[in-house]
C-alpha cells in the first residue's frame, strides 16, 4: 500500500514504511521525479510557477505562493495515499516542510481523506523510541 509520511522528508519514516512492505510516498520521491525530468528547469526543486497554480486545488489564491507550491508537490501524494504515518513534535533535523502553515494543511488534508493513519510523538529517549517503532510496525503490518 502507498503510505504518506509526515514530515514528508523523514528518512527514518521512509525506511520504516519500506521495511514493513509498503511504498512510502515522500518528498524525496516527488522531487526526484521533477529533477530527472529534463523538460523542467526551475532549480533547485524544479517547482515551477505553473505548479504553484496547480496548488490552487489545495489552497485558495490568497494563500502565500510558497504554501501552494509545497501543496502542489505533496497534495497529489496525499491524494493517492492509502494510509499515513505522522510524527508529532519532531525537531527540524528529523525532517520538516519548512513552513508551519503547510504542515498544518497537510495534516488537515490527511484527516479529510479519512485514510487509516497513525500519529506518534517524537521520542525523547531510547525506551520511547522502541515503543514508537513498535507502534508504527503494528500499524503498517495491520494495513491490508
Amino acid at each position, binding site marked *: 500500500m502507498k503510505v504518506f509520511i509526515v514530515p514528508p522528508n523523514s528518512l527514518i519514516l521512509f525506511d520504516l514504511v519500506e521495511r514493513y512492505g509498503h511504498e512510502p510516498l515522500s518528498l524525496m520521491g516527488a522531487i526526484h521525479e521533477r529533477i530527472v525530468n529534463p523538460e523542467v528547469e526551475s532549480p533547485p526543486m524544479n517547482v515551477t*510557477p505553473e505548479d504553484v497554480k496547480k496548488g490552487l486545488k489545495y489552497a485558495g489564491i490568497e494563500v502565500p505562493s510558497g504554501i501552494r*507550491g509545497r501543496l502542489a508537490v505533496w497534495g497529489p501524494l496525499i491524494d493517492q495515499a492509502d494510509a499515513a504515518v505522522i510524527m508529532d513534535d519532531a525537531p*527540524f533535523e528529523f525532517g520538516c516542510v519548512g513552513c508551519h502553515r503547510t504542515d498544518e494543511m497537510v495534516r488537515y488534508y490527511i484527516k479529510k481523506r479519512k485514510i487509516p493513519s497513525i500519529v506518534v510523538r517524537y521520542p525523547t529517549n531510547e525506551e520511547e523510541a522502541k515503543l514508537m517503532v513498535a507502534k508504527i510496525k503494528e500499524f503498517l503490518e495491520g494495513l491490508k
Partner: protein
Amino acid sequence: MIKIAQLSCGTEYSGVQSEIEMAATTVGAKMVYPDVEAKDIEDAVDKFGFNPTSAQLKLMIARAVAVTEGKYDADAIFISSCFRCAEAALIRNELRRYVQEHSRLPVVTYSFTERTKSGQLLTRMEALVTIVERKELLARERQVGLTAGIDSGSSTTKAMIMRDNHIIGKFWHKTGEVVACAEEALDKALAEAGVKRNQLEAIGVTGYGRFTIGKALKCDLIQEELTVNSKGAVWLADRQKGEATIIDIGGMDNKAITVRDGIPDNFTMGGICAGASGRFLEMTANRLKVDITDLGALADQGDWKKVEMNSYCSIFGIQSLVTSLASGHALADVAAAACHSVAEQVYEQQLQEIDVRHPVIQVGGTSLISGLVTAVGNVVGERPIVPPNSQYIGAAGAALLSSGFLEGHR
C-alpha cells in the same frame, strides 16, 4: 563578483528562485546562501529573540546572524518571503532591522508571488551592486567639469547640465520614444546652458530608458535610479551628511530610500496599483478639470477629512472621486482627499518596510504638488523638505556622479 546573501523563505517552492538568480547574474552579482550548522540555528533564534514556528524562517534568522557576525562573507543582503505570509512578514521586517543594527551591509526586502520575474528585481539588485561596487563614486559630493545628466522616467524625461557644481541648464518634457525624448531634452538643456554637446565631458543616464539611451548617446554612466536619485536628492537639498529619508512618488512606481551620508542603505520600490502613484493625481486633475500644476494649491485649500476616499485601486479611487463630486463636495476637499489617499498608500505600502529617518526629503515631479507634500507631512509627522529643482533629482544625480569619471583622468 558581488555576493548577495539570500535570506528567504518559500522561493524554491514558488518557482521564483531562478528569477532571483537571473536578476543577480544580469547585474554582475551572485546570490549566496550562508552556511549554518543545524546546532547553531536555535542559538541564533535565541539571540534574535523571535522564535517563529516555521523552520525555514528559523534558518533565515540563523543565516542573518552568521552574516552579521562575519562568519560568512557577503557584500549585500536580500531578504525575501512569500507575499501574504503574516509570520514571514513579521520576520522579514524585524530581520531587516537586525541586519541594519548589526552591520553596514546594504539590504533590500521583497515579498514575492509566483508571478515575480527577474525584471521586477533588476533595479533592486542593480542598486545593491552599485552601492557595493561604486562606494567611492557614491561618496562624491561635488560635481566637477561640464557634465550632463538624463533621467528617462515613465512619465517625463529630464535633462540637466552642470558646470563646477552649478546647474547651468535644464529641461523636462513628457516621455515618448525614449531616445528621441532624451536627445530633445538634452539639446534644450544645452541650449539654455549655452554649450554644445561636443563640449560635454561626461553624460550620465538613469531611469527606465537608461540602457537604450546609454547605448545610443554613448553615456559614461548608466545607473539605476535608486542610487542616482538619492545622490541627486541630497545634493539638491544640501543634506549630504548624516541621515535622511527620500520619498519619490513617481508616475509609475514609488521609492522610499533611507540614506546615510548620501549613500542608500535600505530602500523599497514599487506600488501595488496606480492608485498609490502620481498617475492617480493626474487622473484626479483631469476629472476635476484643473491643470496638474494647480492641483496641489487647490488641495491645500481643502479638507481631506470631508471626503471618504481610498485609492488603493485607482479605479475605486476614481469611483470615490466621482461619487463625492456628485454628492456636492467642494473641488478643494476632493483634491485634498486624493492627495491624502496617495500619501496614505505610500505610508502603508512602503514606509512600513523602512525605518523613517529624519529629515524626510520629498522629490520627483509629484513633489511640486504642494497638497501631496502637505499630505505626506501629515502621515509621517513632519513636513518634508522639497529642494529646489526637486523634479530633476535623477538628472542632477546623473550629472554629479558622471563627473566622478572625469577626475581619474585629470
